[in-house]
């Protein structure tokens, strides 16, 4: 009886103290949250309105975050090592991209939050503000931008943080 239990215990210990990692960061674990933007109709503010052939560019990255598509909502990442991220929203993007779109700088404060051993940390963002940096009125297609929720955390991932009227 004793020897049996000793062997069972050896088994447990071999399973638990070996060198292979058994901690995997699962898909469902909330990681660094995304900024969620929803597009609304400027003439009928109750209703969402898809942006035709929208392309989204982060900072100086010259490839659109998503394939060009007609959509009424996007979820975009913010930089976790800076207090700002620049974004360019291009409407009616086609094959010959011109980058002649609306640009915004999003400013925020950051706070890193421990998740667990496998996933490490995520960054949450607070006091989000936006600044329109579109270089010319000719590129403007957005009527108004409204921040609804200024904290971007795993708890605020179900509702849009920003409403854009166009």
């Amino acid at each position, binding site marked *: 009886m004793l020897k049996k239990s000793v062997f069972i215990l050896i088994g447990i210990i071999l399973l638990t103290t070996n060198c292979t990692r058994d901690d995997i960061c699962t898909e469902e674990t909330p990681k660094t949250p995304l900024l969620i933007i929803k597009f609304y109709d400027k003439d009928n503010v109750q209703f969402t309105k898809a942006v035709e052939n929208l392309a989204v560019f982060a900072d100086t990255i010259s490839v659109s975050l998503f394939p060009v598509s007609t959509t009424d909502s996007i979820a975009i990442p913010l*930089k976790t090592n800076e207090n700002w991220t620049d974004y360019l929203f291009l409407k009616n993007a086609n094959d010959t991209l011109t980058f002649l779109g609306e640009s915004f700088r999003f400013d925020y404060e950051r706070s*890193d939050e421990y998740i667990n*051993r496998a996933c490490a*940390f995520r960054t949450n963002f607070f006091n989000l503000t936006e600044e329109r940096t579109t270089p010319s009125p000719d590129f403007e297609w957005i009527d108004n931008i409204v921040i609804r929720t200024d904290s971007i955390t795993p708890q605020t991932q179900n509702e849009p943080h920003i409403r854009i009227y166009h």
Partner: protein
Amino acid sequence: MSRIFASIISLFLLAAGTVAAQEASDSVQTDTISYAEKYGLRVGADLSKPFRTLIDDDYSGFEIMADYRLTKKIYLAIELGNEQCTTFDDNLTSKGSGNYVKIGADYNMHKNWVGLNNMIFMGLRYGFSTFSQDLIDYTINTQEPVFPVDFRPENITYNGLNAQWVELIVGVKTEIATNLFLSLNLQLKRRVSEKAPDNFENLYIPGFNRTYENSSIGAGFGYGISYLIPLFKK
């Protein structure tokens, strides 16, 4: 690592085998000559921890231990140790370092042949550790790999941490030469309280070993050598 385990287990089996062989012919006992058994203080050190210190760059540690025979079957036991262990996880590296003490008692379940002092024992310990933890580096976990990986080699030290646990221990002690004992034990631990850093957690607790998410269970083993200082016989 598996080789170490293999050798430790074979040593353990050797020790267990010695005790078992002796147990097998244990049945007839008509001897009426009384034999006084040795009582005393047994002091020793763990061998696996210095050995691991030599071969594993990310670990250093030692443990000294003592037990005192209280009654025929019960021994008071204490272990004191120091450990430092660096843990490499997928997205973070951390190091726990500090001291621990474990106190408790062992119960010898083995009936010895006359003149032998081997043990197959089960014991309980209360463990307490004070330690610090270094968060050496980590990455920010993002769901969209849009921006370059945000790696933070921050090396933050959290001091003044502690943990308490209870431990179930089973093992054998075999007298390999007069008053000299080899012992192997396996430990199953359950944490009862801990002081963890803000916005981080205790990933390695000296004496308790690594922790598991959403669990207060830990495990460990010891392989040691000890010397019995006989004090009296009865």
